[in-house]
C-alpha cells in the first residue's frame, strides 16, 4: 500500500485503533501503537486485496502490535492493587477498566478490546474470522469478568 492509500484510512481507522490500544495501555503508548500500525501497513508487502480488506489488514497488524507491546513490564497484568493508577488527566474509571481488561486472556481479550474500540459485532466477527455467536458469547463472558474485577477493586 502506498502512503496516500494508508493516509486516507487515518481518519476512519485512527479513532477505533486508538481506543483499541487505549483499552490496554496509557494514552501516550496507544498513540505510538496506532502510528506503528499505519507505518507497518505501508512497509509490509503482504497486503493482498483479493484476500481481504485494508481494514482487516490493519486490524491484523494491530492485534500483533498489541501482543508485542503488552509484554513490556509496565503493561503486565496486576491483580493485587487497591486502585489502578490513572495517568495525568485521565478518568480513573478508564484506568480501572484498562487494568481489568489486562487480566483477560485471548481470544476474549482481543474481542473485548474491539468492543471498547466501538466496532460492531459483525465487524469484529469479520476481522477475527469468528462466528458472530462466538463473538457474542466472548463479549458476555468478558463483561461478567470485568464486572467481578471492578467490584473486587471497590468500584461500586
Amino acid at each position, binding site marked *: 500500500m*502506498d*502512503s496516500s492509500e*494508508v*493516509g486516507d484510512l*487515518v*481518519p476512519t481507522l*485512527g*479513532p477505533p485503533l*486508538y*481506543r483499541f490500544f*487505549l*483499552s490496554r495501555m496509557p494514552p501516550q503508548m496507544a*498513540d505510538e501503537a*496506532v*502510528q506503528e500500525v*499505519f*507505518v507497518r501497513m*505501508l*512497509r509490509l508487502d503482504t497486503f493482498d486485496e483479493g484476500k481481504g480488506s485494508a481494514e482487516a489488514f490493519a486490524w491484523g497488524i494491530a492485534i500483533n502490535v498489541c501482543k508485542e507491546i503488552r509484554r513490556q513490564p509496565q503493561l503486565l497484568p496486576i491483580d493485587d492493587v487497591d486502585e489502578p493508577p490513572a495517568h495525568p488527566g485521565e*478518568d480513573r*474509571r*478508564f484506568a480501572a*477498566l484498562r487494568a481489568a481488561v489486562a487480566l483477560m486472556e485471548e481470544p476474549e481479550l482481543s474481542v473485548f478490546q474491539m*468492543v*471498547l*474500540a*466501538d466496532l460492531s459485532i459483525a465487524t469484529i466477527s469479520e476481522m477475527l474470522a469468528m462466528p458472530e455467536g462466538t463473538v457474542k458469547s466472548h463479549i458476555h463472558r468478558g*463483561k461478567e469478568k*470485568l*464486572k467481578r474485577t*471492578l*467490584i473486587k477493586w471497590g*468500584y*461500586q
Partner: protein
Amino acid sequence: MTKDKDFEQLIVDFQQQQPSAMRLERWKRTLRSATGNRRSPWSYVAAGLAAGLILGVIISRGLMPSRPEENFSATYVLYDVKNF
C-alpha cells in the same frame, strides 16, 4: 458499578473517546516522512548498473594498451617507407 446500567455506561463513555485532531495529523505526517525514507527497489538496480559500468571501464582500461593508435601509425610509417 455493581449496577449493570453503570457498567454499560462506563463502556459507552470509553467508546466515545476520540484522538485529538493533532494526533490524527501527526499520524498522517509520520506516514509522509516514512515514505520519504523508504528506498525504492529501482534505486538498488540503478546503484548496481552504475557500479557495473565503473567496474567495466576500469577493467577495459587495464586490459587494453593505453594508446593503441601509436602502433598503427608505426605500421603505416614502415609501409610508406617500403613503398617510397
